[in-house]
């Protein structure tokens, strides 16, 4: 009897949506690789500053400037004699912080606006969604650049600008989710027992409509890291001597003409790998959270 019960329990567990999604994510090789890459950079970003503190202001050794990769400096040194590997590693927390902050801003503001628009409809819906249409009329990178150019360079303005340009994407997805879910029986039931609108919205509708938002946020992390690097490269993001990957490229690319490729190659590879990780994970999540889209081994 007990055996039969545990079998039934096992079956139930296998069929729970979350377990299934995690299993599907793990079964997709590309998503697994994405997860490993992201985990690698996250661990790097958390552990390295704790174990090897780094002060970019005092890091300079002109006698060692522009040395090619060697055993001592595996990624070589830059024009101020700084170890490129050390700076690339210490750039991870900056890029991830910018990405996470920008995505968190966009996700919170966009989801809130989209849900309010979809739930209350009417004039509020029209007003919010027209505003989103107007923001979408701008090319995203241009809008981010213009905002930072006006507000002044720096990491905080970079996060703000990248976050702002991602708001309409989340708002549209959240609104669509609310429109689809608010006719469900459990929402009517919540209303019938007297739940207030905000409770219905955030306790009943939001948890059930969160999957597409999670996917969008993961893919958006990739875009945010790329945009932060672009702003850093244009001198609008992190300011020297901070070891931000885009700013490092901007500092070093002048030295390509004298053959110093290493201070340009490695920060760029770090950006590419991080973005690739988020893209693979985001694609995998999309497939895992949407059972209709199960396509195993999309890229491999």
């Amino acid at each position: 009897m007990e055996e039969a019960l545990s079998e039934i329990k096992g079956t139930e567990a296998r069929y729970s949506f979350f377990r299934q999604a995690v299993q599907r994510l793990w079964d997709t090789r590309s998503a697994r690789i994405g997860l490993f890459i992201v985990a690698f950079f996250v661990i790097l970003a958390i552990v390295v500053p704790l174990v090897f503190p780094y002060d970019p202001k005092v890091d300079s050794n002109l006698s060692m400037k522009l040395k090619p990769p060697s055993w001592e400096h595996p990624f070589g040194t830059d024009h101020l004699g700084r170890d490129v590997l050390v700076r690339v590693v210490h750039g991870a927390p900056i890029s991830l912080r910018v990405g996470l902050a920008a995505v968190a801003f966009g996700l919170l503001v966009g989801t809130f606006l989209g849900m309010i628009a979809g739930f209350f409809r009417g004039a509020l819906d029209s007003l919010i969604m027209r505003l989103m249409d107007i923001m979408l009329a701008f090319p995203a990178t241009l809008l981010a650049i213009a905002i930072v150019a006006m507000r002044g360079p720096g990491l905080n303005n970079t996060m703000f600008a990248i976050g702002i340009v991602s708001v309409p994407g989340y708002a549209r997805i959240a609104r669509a989710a609310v429109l689809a879910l608010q006719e469900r029986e459990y929402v009517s039931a919540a209303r019938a027992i007297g739940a207030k609108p905000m409770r219905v919205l955030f306790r009943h509708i939001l948890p059930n409509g969160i999957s597409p938002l999670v996917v969008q946020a993961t893919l958006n992390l990739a875009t945010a890291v790329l945009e932060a690097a672009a702003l850093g490269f244009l001198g609008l993001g992190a300011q020297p001597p901070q070891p931000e990957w885009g700013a490092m490229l901007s500092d070093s690319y002048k030295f390509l003409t004298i053959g110093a490729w290493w201070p340009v190659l490695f920060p760029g590879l770090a950006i590419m790998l991080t973005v690739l990780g988020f893209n693979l994970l985001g694609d995998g999540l999309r497939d895992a959270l949407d059972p209709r889209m199960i396509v195993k081994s999309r890229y491999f």
Partner: protein
Amino acid sequence: MLSYIIRRILSLIPVLIGVSIIVFLFIHMIPGDPVLAILGERATVENVERARHELGLDRPLWEQYFLYVNKIFHGDLGRSIRSNTPVSQEMATKFPATVELSLFAMLIALIIGIPAGIISAAKRNSIFDTTVMIGALIGVSMPIFWLGLMLAFLFSIFLKWLPFSGRLDPTIILPVKTNLLLLDSLIAGNWVAFKNSLAHLILPSLALSTIPMAIIARMTRSCLLEELGQDYIRTARAKGLKENKVLLRHALKNAFLPVVTTIGLQAGTLLSGAILTETIFSWPGIGRWIYMAIQSRDYPIVQGAALLITLIYVFVNLLVDISYAFLDPRIRYQ
């Protein structure tokens, strides 16, 4: 069809008004006094007051906005603070360089992206398919300014095959008519200038083409695969059609609609200024112009260029929508 186009254009009016308000507000987003930010802390009181008056910042906000819109309708986007030339005039000299670069980049993206997507779909899960899809994924994950730098290092600095910066060697004299140098050199029958400007065009357009190429390849593949699973394809195969015909005549025709949209949207993005690519390759187009304006805090240029670029972007998107409705009658009756 006409009513669809009219409806679509009318729906743009509130968007355009909103865009003009946001661009207008750009200058008010500058922390502190925008005039001091433009002129620097050492500016004299008279200069500050004069600049404030010239920029119209001494009027109420609503009046400033209506003045701004009025000027836009008269083709006046303000004057550059540094050079004092009209923004619209400077823009007209920069735009052809961006058009030439974008069109060439799009050409490369189409020539490689579409066949790669078709072959990938036809040989699904083959080594070719896997390679193309990994390549496409890396393509969208790469910072294009970094790719541009690496290409420049390899082909210009290390191998010395192609020039690194600019549009034409300064030693070559070419009468400028359209400012599209390939076209100008053809008009003038100057083959040396043609070859030289083509050589200058290759690296920046190759770097710029990466993202559209990757997106077009992925889109072509996925749309084609979707069509290949349809019943009419099975019918076509069952009646004994060769696989090539099934693929190119039947499936591709129907799969092409979303691909056309993607191409249009990517063209809009390219035309709206490749700020990073143009900056790296010192390409004298709109993107580099904006970058220089940001560096020198020439805000009227940033404002004017952002407005015009957004208008181009909106207009290209409109054309894409119209072409979509033209190709698929179901859209226009919705």
